[in-house]
């Protein structure tokens, strides 16, 4: 089960690592402040969700957890918009947006690692798999950080586009959960690119973590994605103009 643990940890941590790397490029001068503002709310949110997970999952005809995660994803996106729109609170709101994402990833990982039934996995497998998964995620995030740092210096609009894509990814995840819970109508499937770029391939996996790539998106997801990307990008452009 080593490889399963590696994939699980990587799947949960990679989007968070990429978001943190993106935010660290933005708040380079205040990175310590950003990380401190990130750690405490993250742990608080994670504790709240983990302690009440059973109760939450039973609410609203069994879709309570999905709705909570959707709310956290949307909050992450909204906080990023606020960060771009209002530079005065940018560090705090950016940190809170990352904390929202951490609480989702963290609760998934806690379920996998700590709850009963994991006796089949040896502690060594879990520890090694977690370390490998976290290490791979962190390495990719470091590369992403330096790429963004270079792009930001060379052309700030490209950084704004990538920040908007990373932010809009959270809306894509929320929409998938809402469609699954029947809280958002799906509509017809827009395209099927599974054969061209599978979500299970390495590139598909990375693009899913970075941009919210879907091989079979539906109309409502596509419309939301375009709308939210436009909004966040506009906020970023406004931030650039007011600087």
């Amino acid at each position, binding site marked *: 089960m080593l490889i*399963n643990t590696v994939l*699980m940890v990587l799947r949960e941590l990679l989007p968070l690592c990429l978001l943190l790397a993106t935010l660290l490029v933005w708040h380079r001068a205040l990175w310590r402040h950003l990380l401190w503002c990130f750690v405490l709310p993250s742990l608080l949110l994670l504790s709240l969700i983990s302690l009440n*997970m*059973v109760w939450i*999952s*039973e609410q609203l*005809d*069994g*879709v309570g*957890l*999905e709705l909570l995660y959707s709310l956290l994803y949307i909050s992450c996106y909204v906080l990023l918009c606020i960060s771009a729109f209002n530079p005065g609170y940018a560090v705090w709101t950016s940190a809170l947006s990352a904390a929202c994402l951490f609480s989702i990833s963290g609760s*998934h990982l806690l*379920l*996998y690692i700590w*709850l*009963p*039934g*994991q006796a089949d996995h040896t502690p060594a497998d879990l520890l090694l798999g977690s370390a490998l998964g976290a290490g791979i995620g962190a390495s990719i995030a470091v590369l992403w950080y330096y790429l963004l740092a270079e792009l930001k210096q060379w052309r700030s609009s490209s950084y704004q586009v990538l920040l908007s894509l990373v932010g809009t990814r959270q809306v894509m995840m929320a929409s*998938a959960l809402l*469609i*699954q*819970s*029947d809280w958002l*109508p*799906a*509509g*017809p499937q827009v395209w099927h690119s*599974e054969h061209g770029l*599978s*979500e*299970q391939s390495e590139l598909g996996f990375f693009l899913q973590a970075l941009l919210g790539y*879907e*091989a*079979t998106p*539906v*109309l*409502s997801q596509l*419309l939301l994605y375009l709308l939210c990307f436009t909004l966040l990008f506009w906020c970023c452009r406004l931030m650039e103009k007011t600087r």
Partner: protein
Amino acid sequence: MKNKELKHKKLRPNHQKLVAVKALLLLTLPVVAEQNVFELRIKDHLFQPSVLYVPAGEKVKLLVLNQDPSPEEFESFSLNREKVILGLGKATLFIGPLAPGQYQFFGEYNPDSAQGVLIALPEAEWLQHKANHAY
């Protein structure tokens, strides 16, 4: 007066754009109909049944019951669904409308054992299947 006319002229293209966006959004709304409910159980890290037949072209409600003490994550790339079901818990998933065909799903936490396939049948075949299996 001139200002009002100019305002109306400016509003007209925006109003047309708004109508177009509303029409696009309406396309995403489903037709309200009674939903079929299907049950899937997880026991000893296995899905039961491992082959589930559903009607194609309809939204269906999937009730997943986890009879194991450990949590499991129902995941399907082709269905675009993933859901964690806590130990001895149940979960509800909405799927479809699906095109006729086969859709693989698996348990993320136990992918070697927890595997299954959902087969969406066209209407005629679904009615035949229903008659044969008394749903």
